[in-house]
């Protein structure tokens, strides 16, 4: 089988190039590709074929990981449109958004003082996930109406959510460790 590395990830899986993704179709296309490309299919082949299989399967895994994750997919869509988002150098500047983020961070720091820290964390985590979903919805509206600058502004918020979610996971692990000694 030939794998064309120059096709974009949507083309690779035969999916329309848009924010909304049909999870079942994505999963089916991914599995169909992997079942042909996976190195296990070449356990009896020579080193060369096995090496190529590793490269091909890696490429497909990366494509799948990108399209499966909402945040990564949004960034990727913008990059396909040639819109550069340098998250190292640029940041979201919507004042209300930044204020909300600060409050969420403070709330995370106070979780330890709650009567049931894990429950407090879970509640906060639900709130964060809801805001994240809203932000993605705003991205989708902007992107699909080809308002790329507005879409770019939403993507600049992604990093804040990535950090919040990492923080939730970190606190969660710490609380579990404490709970169990």
């Amino acid at each position, binding site marked *: 089988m030939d794998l064309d590395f120059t096709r974009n990830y949507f083309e690779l899986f035969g999916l329309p190039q848009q924010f909304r993704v049909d999870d079942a179709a994505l999963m089916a296309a991914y599995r169909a590709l992997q079942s042909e490309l996976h*190195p296990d299919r070449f356990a009896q082949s020579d080193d060369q074929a096995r090496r190529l299989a590793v490269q091909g399967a890696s490429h497909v895994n990366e494509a799948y990981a990108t399209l499966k994750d909402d945040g990564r997919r949004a960034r990727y869509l913008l990059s396909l449109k040639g819109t550069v988002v340098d998250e190292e150098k640029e940041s979201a500047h919507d004042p209300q958004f930044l204020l909300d983020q600060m409050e969420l961070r403070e709330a995370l720091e106070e979780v330890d003082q709650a009567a049931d820290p894990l429950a407090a964390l879970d509640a906060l985590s639900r709130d964060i996930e809801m805001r994240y979903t809203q932000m993605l919805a705003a991205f989708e509206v902007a992107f699909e109406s080809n308002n790329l600058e507005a879409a770019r502004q939403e993507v600049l918020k992604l990093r804040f959510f990535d950090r919040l979610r990492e923080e939730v996971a970190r606190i969660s692990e710490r609380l579990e460790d404490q709970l169990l000694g």
Partner: protein
Amino acid sequence: MALLQISEPGMSPDPHLHRLAVGIDLGTTNSLVATVRNGVAETLPDEKGRHLMPSVVHYPDQGPPQVGQEARGYSALDPLNTLSSVKRLMGRGVSDLKTVAGHVPYDFVPGDGGVPRIRTRQGDVTPVEVSGEILKALRARAEASLGGELEGAVITVPAYFDDAQRQATKDAARLAGMNVYRLLNEPTAAAIAYGLDKGQEGVIAVFDLGGGTFDISILRLNKGVFEVLATGGDSALGGDDFDRAIAGWMMQEAGIEGDTGHHRMRQLMMDACAVKEALSEREEARLKVALSDSDYWSGCITCEQMNCLIDPLINKTLAACRRALRDAKVKPEDILDVVMVGGSTRVPRVRERVGEFFGRAPRVDIDPDKVVAVGAALQADILAGNKPGDEMLLLDVIPLSLGIETMGGLVEHIIPRNTTIPVSRAQEFTTFKDGQNAMALHVIQGERDLVDHNRSLARFTLSGIPSMVAGAARVRVTYQVDADGLLSVNAREMVSGVQSSIEVKPSYGLTDNEIETMLTDSRSHAQEDMLARRLREQQVEADRVLEALDSALGADSELLSQDELKDIRDAREQLAAAREGEDHEAIALAIKGLERASEDFVARRMDQSVRKAMSGHRVEEFE
């Protein structure tokens, strides 16, 4: 346009040829070998009908090492020459020995860092060599009972095994002359054994509680595809800890001091284990503990009392389950099936608590000691090409994050844990000082933020970076993990094209030289294969270097004096000559020689291109 050409899979040359393939559960305490015969996967017994082979090797006064039941007989008589539990040392360095101290009583050869060596009367041996003996014995058992030479094997490893431990396991197989189709995570093998890929769709959990380790894996099954979503666990938690907790209670009740002798302690642990097994079937067990030769303490323990003792330990396993579910992004109620593996899952309290946590009764139909080997055999049968119609596919994840050391001893993750493999990810780094010509790369495995708290996998250096201002060089570091979870790292400076790569293993595995030495002793063909591969790899590299040099000389030889040009030409001739020979090390040396001879040339070409760029000319592409 890059196209990848791959021949059609599943085109076995002779459909009637059945390849002899086995699955091996290489355990800490016991090992098993299984195969598929007439469509049924079964473990293979020895001539006396015993399926479990103790993972014990004895080095006698004369003759070859003894393995298994016979060897175990010597553990009391000849303890220093009877090695057990070496799995705990696989892929570990001398500096790791503290963490396994207490589990293994051997004499280690003091000294020089790297791989630990155990002193026996037949000489010093490494854990890899000892495991190699166990695999040889399993291979012999399989070939005797199947009546032919093995084509290949699937060997299982704990999901928690890191890169060095996986590599060590593969090295052991090489010493045993075994072709490894694949290393398979133990819990994944168990799910395969239950045939959960047939007709079921959904997420399943594999709960594997052995004597000394605990693993939890979350898998998704869909039309024959096994996708490992997350793994987790605790490499120092198991049924032995149950016994220890019960023994502690017994000591307290009987008024035995904490620092009782080694022999007495062993007796107590055995009593505790017997109590645990008795309480699997009854509500209450009577105890009799020897206080001295003539004095006994006798008492009674109920199921409820034992449950209180072991509940804190079970809580730990459930915390790991919670974490794995979060990594997998699923909730307990999403779990369709829970598979139990490992002898300690026979404890009713474990089954009960696990059932409560996941909200369904766990599966316990297959012998929890054999289930891993059975699953490995099924996978081996497919990889051998014996079931061309079978669509089963295993998509695995890496258990621990892979990262790189950045300024200040911090770790930056390049591939996070539970990423599906094979995978390749790259990240760009830059130089820190003006004119910095080399960059030290430190490959790290683990979840912690500080380098010191994680495992160091390898260090290597990218040198020959042309002089540039700080921040101008673009070093692209690529991590590639193959389907077995083994890592190779490549670093390439994007402006000049200088690069360096490493296959990660020497840190705590064996060096290639050590393996080559060992292989000379074994009768397998593995060494020839390996040398041939090395030679091919070096020849390809030599061709690449020669081509790059010729094109650079064609473009810019005026940058060199006559003498310099002669030096480079001489080095080029040496490489060209070595390229035609059979010695991969000579080629590698000649490549290094040529790189050294042309270092200044490369730097000058770089300077020239910078000048051209400064004066408004276009920077020429190199190579």
